[in-house]
């Protein structure tokens, strides 16, 4: 960008967005511009440090799924699944396939619920020019009804499998406490089929949105599985050639502390910032989407890879289709498992678990003692992993938008953050822009 010397270029502009609307939790944005160049871009996450890793120390291995579910009210299933997988890995236990199918179904419910909420109430208002989902609902009631119905269906799947919808109580290391009633599962099929159609309508709806130009050149990291679109299983992989076991994750991913945010910031040790979440999952696994979801992606012109974070709404919509398809597949072939859980005996070992939360890869590692007590725990949530990329995107967005009026610049920053669906709880408009001129 050509720079013209002059008074306006010498000034310092500080852009502070003290509360981010329509993201999970409490955070803010701080950008400092000096002499026409962005010199700092920070995503500040204010949620108090929750110290869950310390809280887990000394607790029994069987408690980890229920304790870590409390980290987030939106994606508790992801925490339970990563915790279970890590504990089962530590104890050398393999869960029966029919139980794994039920866990996948539970996870489908969480994806549908979380994505529907983000697409319809948090993200879509940005594209259609509304302050929030309620204002949008006045002009687009049918769309919002469709979104709420999808969210409700997702909630019901979680409730049916998890015992309740927020912080489910039916998940245990080794399987479930109780199996769902077969007739309750059978009754779900017809409704999931209708939800699948609503999800296809969602893809068409969001694919027509006008989207700002943007292109991420960062490394994309997601689980990859030989024949499944990742959700419950897979190996951490990336567009830069990473392909590792979950147990090798910390050998490649490091976390640092910054003094302005309560969340740790992850990076690939060898290369730096990277992104997890829908764009990464799609880039690494598009061909493993269900045929109907893949066709929806083609119709939406997503291509083999999508690197525009603002189009993540389209990928989320495609993933809702896939989650419905996956739920239908599981329901159609359901045979009640012989037992709700396998018995798990603790042993002195390390265990690793990676699954795909709606907003990205969620890593758990536990160090167990002989008696099953947790000696150490490590949890790396997706928003910690995405924080640096969000900051880089903020920096680039402000740099190319400096000529915009203040309100538009703030709005552009908020849009950037929302497009990543950060979860500050695990990452609203009280805007203040300060411009200091010497």
């Amino acid at each position, binding site marked *: 960008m050509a720079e013209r010397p002059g008074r306006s270029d010498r000034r310092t502009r500080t852009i502070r967005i003290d509360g981010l609307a329509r993201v999970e939790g409490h955070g803010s944005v701080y950008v400092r511009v000096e002499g026409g160049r962005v010199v700092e871009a920070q995503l500040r996450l204010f949620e108090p440090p929750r110290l869950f890793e310390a809280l887990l120390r000394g607790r029994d291995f069987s408690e980890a799924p229920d304790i870590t579910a409390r980290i987030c009210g939106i994606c508790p299933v992801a925490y339970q699944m990563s915790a279970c997988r890590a504990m089962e890995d530590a104890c050398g236990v393999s869960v029966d396939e029919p139980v794994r199918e039920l866990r996948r179904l539970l996870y489908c419910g969480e994806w549908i619920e979380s994505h529907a909420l983000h697409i319809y109430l948090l993200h879509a208002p940005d594209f259609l020019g509304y302050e929030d989902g*309620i204002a949008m609902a006045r002009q687009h009631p049918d769309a919002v009804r469709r979104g709420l119905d999808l969210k409700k269906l997702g909630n019901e799947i979680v409730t049916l499998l998890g015992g309740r919808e927020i912080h489910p109580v039916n998940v245990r290391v080794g399987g479930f406490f109780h199996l769902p009633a077969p007739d309750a599962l059978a009754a779900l099929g017809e409704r999931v089929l209708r939800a699948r159609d609503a999800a296809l309508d969602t893809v068409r709806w969001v694919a027509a949105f006008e989207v700002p130009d943007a292109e991420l050149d960062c490394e994309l990291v997601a689980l990859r599985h030989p024949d499944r679109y990742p959700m419950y299983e897979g190996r951490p992989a990336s567009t830069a050639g990473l392909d590792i076991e979950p147990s090798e994750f910390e050998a490649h991913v490091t976390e640092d502390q910054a003094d302005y945010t309560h969340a740790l910031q992850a990076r690939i040790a060898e290369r730096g910032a990277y992104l997890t979440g829908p764009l990464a999952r799609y880039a690494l696994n598009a061909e493993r989407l269900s045929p109907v979801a893949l066709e929806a992606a083609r119709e939406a012109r997503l291509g083999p890879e999508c690197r525009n974070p603002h189009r993540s709404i389209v990928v989320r919509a495609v993933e809702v289709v896939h989650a419905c398809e996956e739920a239908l597949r599981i329901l159609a072939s359901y045979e009640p498992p012989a037992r709700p859980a396998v018995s798990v005996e603790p042993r002195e070992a390390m265990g690793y678990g990676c699954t795909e939360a709606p907003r990205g890869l969620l890593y758990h590692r536990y160090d167990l003692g002989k008696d099953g007590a947790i000696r150490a725990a490590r949890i790396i949530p997706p928003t910690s992993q995405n924080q640096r990329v969000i900051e880089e995107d903020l920096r680039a967005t402000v740099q190319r938008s400096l000529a915009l009026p203040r309100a538009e610049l703030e709005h552009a920053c908020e849009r950037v953050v929302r497009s990543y669906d950060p979860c500050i709880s695990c990452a609203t408009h009280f805007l203040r822009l300060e411009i200091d001129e010497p």
Partner: protein
Amino acid sequence: MHESRPRDAIVVGLGSPDRRDDAAGLEAVRLLAPLVPPDVRVAALPGRETELLDLWTGAPLAIVIDAVLSGAAPGTVHRLDGFIDALPGSPPHPSSHDLGLPDIVELGRALGRLPARLLILGIEAGTVAHGPGLSPPVRIGVERAVRIALAEVATARSPSPA
């Protein structure tokens, strides 16, 4: 994905079971459930406020019981018309985990998913610290809210004068 419309009144409790007095609405509907006629639906929706839109649409009367923080004495029961009164405790923007009650009313208005009449019984909380168990004044407030809800349900069900 839509179910049958309620033909009679519905009473819903909101709140969190793990935040002391925030569970007041949940406790109220627990006490209320065995006391109302069978065709009055009673539900607890901890953290699932958007489901109100499905439950109350078309009902002649919906009573929502929830804890509030307004500065009044703990246990005070605020009685509000959901369509007329300004609702207390409304954040200026929706939380993303779910919407607050005022937002749900607005959303219901936009989507045509409202009951004919909406009564909100707000029980003033003393503490919303982590943990189970209501504080003593709030327990008394819960009992008062239950009596009010029962009287409202009975009035709504009695034949209206010709």
